[in-house]
């Protein structure tokens, strides 16, 4: 393995069309275009913004079709940025980032089309487009420096979106969001520089921030690696957010405008979980293994804490925000199971959470628009007057709960399976979270949609055809990915396998694969991987079977 392994992983042919630069730069061009349109014509702003972010969405769909199912990084784009420090523009897409790119490509145009800002349309669309570019850049970056730049730059648009278009205590929420995230990334910057500098010294090479080169040629000592890992982990933990650095999230989500919440939950939180998988595990396999129990525990705490606190919320949006904490706890659980099912489940769950929580926030936004309140106690009986709204909410909610046959189930199942193989008790406790999710979401549904009928003058308007059209793709995705997740899993699997093999290679003994007997040599280890594949296959078919039963 080693560096040759990674060199070969880049061998895929470069397409003549600069796909990745287009993904990142098109929204920026769009932002300029919006800036140039006359201020008075707000309809035009929306049109231009939709056009550009829609183009990004179209390219991302094209990527989905052109993506070859293997573990390579594809659509590589590489250029020198700052020569003296070996900083590059280096980007590529593999199975892990593929669906996040697609999610970013599609969720933004949807959010732009779906929601009109309350005021100052022009600036609103400019920030959204910049945000899309930033998220896209972070998901495709394969250079640590480049990743950091995008990881940090997304703060600015989101800060303004929350602060300027948010409700209630928006300034406080925006500032808190900014400072929490910046603290994490500040420490990560030190870690990144230290990693690059120590790596170049210990490996005797020029300084480089190239992810593949650093990961493929691990030169730093175990102890240093562990410390640096913690630096990265703090940044990602804040972004995810993991308990106990999650406190910014309920505020940010509650006060943010609907589109802000959709993007924050759907795309931006994934920067943290994606960071753990792409950078944490890949750069520091040993440290990830060493600290896995800590993160598993934090993940499980997040699952239970998020669920319990969500149950007690009186504000519908805040409830969804806390449910996010619980769901992201699952993703962390899967990631630090450090096996194929776990990480695959985590990757799938990132997408699922993006779709279902994005849709939930959209629906909550629609309810708020109609009723001007998010207090659960003041809502009630909506189902009678708005049956289609209630139906859409039901599907999305069930997906969030993880009902078999809908997308949420696939991810949660794989995660629990992976976690169970590796760390049984954590998985057992986490499974309680699934039950709690059903509790708080169903209870909330009951209070909001059932109950005494609304008075005649206070009828809730049902979804307009336009709103139905916007929710349709999300609901189709929820059902499709739940019923037939195979194409998605197939594309994710090779990259995850490679990552797991990489982790295993650097962990002595592979002792964490309880309850399987401890194995020390590479050859027996290969069997294990093989074995787990077979397991994966089985479970997948089990999975279908299960669904069949439930449907």
């Amino acid at each position, binding site marked *: 393995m080693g560096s040759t392994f990674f060199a070969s992983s880049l061998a895929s042919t470069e397409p003549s069309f600069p796909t990745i630069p287009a993904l990142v730069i098109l929204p920026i061009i769009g932002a300029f275009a919006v800036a140039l349109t006359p201020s008075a014509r707000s309809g035009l702003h929306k049109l231009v913004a939709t056009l550009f972010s829609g183009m990004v969405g179209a390219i991302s769909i094209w990527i989905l079709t052109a993506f070859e199912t293997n573990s390579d990084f594809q659509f590589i784009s590489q250029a020198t940025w700052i020569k*003296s420090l070996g900083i590059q523009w280096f980007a590529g897409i593999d199975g892990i980032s593929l669906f996040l790119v697609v999610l970013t490509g599609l969720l933004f145009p949807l959010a732009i089309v779906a929601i009109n800002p309350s005021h100052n349309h022009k600036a609103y669309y400019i920030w959204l487009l910049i945000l899309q570019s930033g998220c896209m850049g972070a998901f495709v970056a394969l250079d640590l420096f480049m990743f950091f*730049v995008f990881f940090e730059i997304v703060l600015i648009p989101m800060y303004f979106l929350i602060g300027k278009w948010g409700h209630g205590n928006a300034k406080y929420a925006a500032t808190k969001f*900014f400072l929490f995230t910046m603290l994490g990334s500040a*420490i990560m910057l030190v870690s990144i*520089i230290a990693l690059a500098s120590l790596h170049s010294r210990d490996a005797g090479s020029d300084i480089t921030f190239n992810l593949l080169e650093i990961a493929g040629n691990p030169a730093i000592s175990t102890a240093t690696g562990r410390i640096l890992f913690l630096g990265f982990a703090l940044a990602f933990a804040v972004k995810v957010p993991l308990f106990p650095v999650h406190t910014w999230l309920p505020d940010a989500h509650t006060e943010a405008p609907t589109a802000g919440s959709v993007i924050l939950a759907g795309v931006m939180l994934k920067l943290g979980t994606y960071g753990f998988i792409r950078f944490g595990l890949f750069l520091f396999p040993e440290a990830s293994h060493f600290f896995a129990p800590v993160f598993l525990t934090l993940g499980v705490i997040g699952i239970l804490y998020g669920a319990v606190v969500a149950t007690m919320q009186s504000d519908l949006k805040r409830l969804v925000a806390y449910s996010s904490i619980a769901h992201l706890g699952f993703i962390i659980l899967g990631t630090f199971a450090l096996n194929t099912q776990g990480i695959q489940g985590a990757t799938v769950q990132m997408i699922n959470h993006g779709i279902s929580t994005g849709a939930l926030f959209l629906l909550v936004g629609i309810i708020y628009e109609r009723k001007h309140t998010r207090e659960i106690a003041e809502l009630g009986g909506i189902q009678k007057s708005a049956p289609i709204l209630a139906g859409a909410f039901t599907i999305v909610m069930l997906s969030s709960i993880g009902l078999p046959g809908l997308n949420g189930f696939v991810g949660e199942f794989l995660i629990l399976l992976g976690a169970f193989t590796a760390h049984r008790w954590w998985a057992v406790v986490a499974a309680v979270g699934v039950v709690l999710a059903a509790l708080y979401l169903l209870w909330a549904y009951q209070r909001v949609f059932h109950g005494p009928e609304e008075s005649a003058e206070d009828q809730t308007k049902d979804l307009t055809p336009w709103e139905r059209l916007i929710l349709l793709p999300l609901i189709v995705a929820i059902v499709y990915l739940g019923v037939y997740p195979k194409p998605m899993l197939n594309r994710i699997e090779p990259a995850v396998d490679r990552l797991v093999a990489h982790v295993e290679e650097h962990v002595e003994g592979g002792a964490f694969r309880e309850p399987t007997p401890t194995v020390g040599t590479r050859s027996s280890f290969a069997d294990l991987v093989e074995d787990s594949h077979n397991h994966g296959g089985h479970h997948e078919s089990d999975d279908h079977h299960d669904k069949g039963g439930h449907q």
Partner: protein
Amino acid sequence: MSSFSTETIFASTITTPDIAWVALLPLLILCGASIFLLTVASIAPKDLPSSFYAVYTGLAALASLISAIPLWVRVQDNERGPFSTIAGGFSVDGFSLIITFLILVSVVLVACLASEYLINEGISGPEPFVLIMLSASGGITMAGASDLIVLFLGIEVLSIAAYVLAAMDMRRVQSQEAGMKYFILGAFASGFLLYGMALIYGATGSTSLVAIRDFLESTELTNDALLLAGISMVLIGLGFKVATVPFHFWTPDVYQGSPTPFVAFMASAVKAAGFAALIRVFYGAFASYQTDWKPIIYGLAIATLVVGSFMAIVQTDVKRLLAYSSISHAGYILVGFQSGSENGVISVSFYLITYAFMVLGSFAVVSIVGGLNGGQPTLDDFEGLSNRRPILAAVFTIFLLGQAGIPLTTGFFAKFYVIEAAIEARSYGLAISAMVTAVIAAFLYLKILVKMWMTGETESDPISNRQARANIPIRIQVGFVLLISGGFTLIFGIWPHPIVELARDALPIL
């Protein structure tokens, strides 16, 4: 008598050293222009308009800048390389030239700001412009000084002019107070500096930085108490100029009271000259004593970062706030300085260049917004600025995000290089403290952003006042400053390569 070096004292007859006049050309042009202006203005029957003086100053600085370009070419030429003149008292190397460029560019921009400000404040006469040029020539002397005496000369020329600039706004008592404070505390610091130089001379037998370095490298001092006392006193004297904690107490008062354009000058050119002198002395003469001074700088850097960023948060006066913010930036520069390596110097040069543009731009905005409030805007004056002046608010946002170190501004790369230098020198604790205080400092920039973008104007604000503020015109020269600084911050924030290469070519060689 100050220009005698030790050799000439022992020589039987006094011979004057050779002088390479070309090397001094930038300095001479600036000095000459200022004295010429003073003469002409005193002969002229009536006051010329402020804008004439500003144009004159700008042109003089440009001429001086152009005269320095052949020197840069010569210094970068491998065959000719850096050289020193006046018996080794003044060196011309990449480092001195880059600081010279920086000071001259800030003179041009400050002249633009000053003409506007002085008209608004009803101050006529050439004195402010003469003083800016004189002060800048002091700064250029400091950047090239390779003798303690020359360094002291430079500092005094720079400072005395700056004291008067601080008190320039004769109608306002705050300005007088600022000038007085700056003068008294500055004189005190000069005393420390001179005393320290005397002790160093006593310990090493020379005031030439090269001779001191050679002496310390070849000789093992049995008792270096005298030398260490000298080093610390020089550090105090220079620390005062660049406003490191605990020698920073003058900064908030002086920044608050002084006329805004001259504050911009202090924060850009004076700071750059001070750090140039620090690098000359500590990297040049005391390189072999790194183990002694590095821990002190380490402590100073942390204190400066923490005090600067925490104190900045509680300020309501924007100039005072920017004063504390400039203190915290001095802390970052110390972080790079502390590394004691070549990369450290590069990071310091880069930081000084990029910070100068950000701070000049920030004070340009402050002078516009504070225009009708006695030049002393509070945070509340920024309320709803994005509604009244979207473009001004956007430009100020660039400067604030730059100072906060957000990517795609030069401020981010400045922090990046400083942290990188610290990490290479294994100062991890310092690097982490620097980044944590960066978050604290970010809070204060966010406070201004919140005021500008997320707060409507308060109801209590009388409408007439609001209308008055909305109608302050932005003159073309101030617009020019904003364009240059904003453009610099953004363009080199995405593509820092040229500036880094410039800083890389600008290492001090004695």
